[in-house]
């Protein structure tokens, strides 16, 4: 089954001109794991993911997703925790985003403004929310990994949330005022 998915991805990558994310996938042998063998991301892919993440969780009075290295985090999680089917959806989804954004704005995602990027990803998210199968699934994956990576990062946990390593006590009922941050795990 994994072989078929790799073949499908290979066809897709070739069809898209070989410049796409995942185009360097190695197609030698059959990995024992249910994962794409040799899936690698280039620095430009990571930069692309950094900007996507930053569009979802931007710098405000605290740093945003790019500052926590969200691109590298997403790549690591996709490589190690996604199975081949999910990897294929993620990689082909990124390529779709790249192409789709360009079709709409007549420029690369990387050349778009923060507003254009966020608006575009928002539209994609709304589309997925309304779709019975959450299509395109890639936006749900990106959102999930961005939120996870950001709020469990040192910046996210300690600057954007309240992180208390050793609470030392349990206060069962304390007043909460709007604006108070959630406690990080």
């Amino acid at each position, binding site marked *: 089954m994994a072989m078929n998915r790799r073949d499908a991805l290979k066809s897709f990558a070739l069809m898209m001109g070989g410049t796409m994310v995942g185009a360097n996938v190695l197609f030698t042998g059959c990995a*024992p*794991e*249910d*994962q794409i063998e040799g899936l690698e991301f280039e620095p430009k892919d990571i930069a692309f993911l950094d900007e996507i993440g930053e*569009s*979802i*969780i*931007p710098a*405000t009075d605290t740093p*945003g997703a790019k500052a926590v290295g969200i691109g590298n985090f997403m790549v*690591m*999680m996709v490589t*190690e*925790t*996604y*199975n081949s089917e999910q990897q294929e959806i993620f990689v082909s989804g990124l390529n779709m985003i790249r192409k789709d954004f360009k079709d709409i704005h007549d420029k690369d995602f990387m050349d778009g403004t923060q507003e254009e990027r*966020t608006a575009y*990803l*928002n539209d994609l*998210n709304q589309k997925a*929310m309304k779709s019975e199968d959450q299509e395109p699934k890639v936006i749900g994956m990106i*959102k999930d990994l961005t*939120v*996870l*990576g950001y*709020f*469990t*990062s*040192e910046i996210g*946990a300690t600057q*954007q*949330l309240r*992180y*208390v*390593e*050793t*609470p*030392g*006590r*349990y*206060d*069962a*009922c*304390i*007043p*909460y*005022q*709007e*604006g*108070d*941050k*959630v*406690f*990080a*795990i």
Partner: protein
Amino acid sequence: MANQDYDAIVVGSGISGGWAAKELAEKGLKVLLLERGQDVEHVKDYKNATTAPWEVPHRGRRTIEMLENHPNLRRDYVLNELNLDWWAHEADSPYIEKKPFTWFRGYQVGGRSLLWGRQSYRLADVDFEANLKQDIAVDWPIRYKEIAPWYSYVEKFAGISGSKDGIPILPDGEFQPPMPLNCVEKDVAERIKKHFGGKRHMTIGRVANITEALPGRTKCQFRNKCSLGCPFGGYFSSQASTLPAALATGNLTLRPWSIVTRLIYDRDTQKATGVEVLDAETNETVEYNSKIVFLCASAFNSTAILMRTATEIWPDGLGSSSGELGHNVMDHHFRLGANGTMEGYEDQYYFGRRPTGIYIPRFRNIDGDKRDYIRGFGYQGAASRSGWSRNVAEINFGAPLKEALSEPGPWSMGVTAFGEILPYHENTIKLSATEKDKWGVSILEMNAEIKDNEKKMRVDMMNDAAEMLEAAGMKNVNTYDGGYTFGQGIHEMGTARMGRDPKTSILNGNNQVWDAKNVFVTDGACMTSAAAQNPSLTYMALTARAANFAVEELKKGNL
């Protein structure tokens, strides 16, 4: 050459074995404590106890490699990148599932005392009397009044926090101050009590996390990272509690990497003279001698040792003359209940990560209630405010999403039911005739399933949960059944039960093997019925009681 002769040998260093070692060593016996796995030193070997969330490589998620390497551990929460070394791995320690069976084991010093859920409840007389009254299996050879002082004894030393609620089904004990219910739980508890006319109770989980310091231990710091090992000694583990006490006597020798293959049985005296140990690192066989042996290797492994003992006399092993060795496998069936949301309380929050939740003791088939099944179930759960991982579909990406997820969300509460499984003769473990592990030791074959009584109970377990949450004013109440495979409760019990008759039980009322009176089995194997309560506290009490009895018998020259 190490000393080969001891007064007592204890097999297994988990909750039961740690207690046996402490009690016997404190009473002056020279004790050899054998543990099949690696040593885990208190504090020093808790390598992820203070790992920050951002230092956790996959932030708690599972890699495909972990999933593929651990087809058994992946069945539940136990597969976790932070303490994977503390759960026995399938490749080294396989077993056979004649029917689906999940066996989660802790093969290291401290065993599962490092990993346990720490919920600590007494069994009540209704539990000890049930088999007799309902003509199920055999009668327990003891009653509550015989074990009550031993519950008190172990509670004081282990440190159990909880509230005295005066509920007959859940006897009160020697508790440290309880951890509090949060504001939603408090109101839910009051509404349940009112709605059900005082027949259903919700209390704070009685838990082996200390709220007052004990010798050598700091009180719980509310980090809720217990299963990574606690550098404060905030919860009961062999490492934090019983082993330091045992070592302080100067009477304890601890030997890790020691797989006990069998007891050495003397036909003439009808006693064990010691144990045969396979060194897990060198594969060498060593024999150790002792006057008494305590088997605390975890239920199925203690029974497996009996099955491999004295086979020249009884082909199916020591204790098999009863026809019940390896039978009556029990667990607690669970993974179903209900959850819901609570409106309001937006101006309320809490501080600290409380390592326990709520407990709703059994209310079915007692006090005149009668169902189409026997026995009952209890609930565990908690109310909390959601955090950044909640779904906020309607919020726009960008600063709005970032801010929304940085504030606590609505309150919700979930409860999970834990139900009693009856002791069925046909639910068994046995040694495989053909399959062995990498040490050449025969592996176990599991053949157990829940039956009609448990299946009927599960209907109530789910519906009663929803009924109570609704009665408490919760909204969006949903029931769930996550499916249960036998063993998943990690409360495996039975297979060498206590009883009153050697023809139908393996152990007598003092956990003494009928066919070898200097051998004691005090872990989950000894359980005659399962009750619905988490069982570890009962193993502690039975172990301390049996150790006291064994030493008295030794003094009298009876062993």
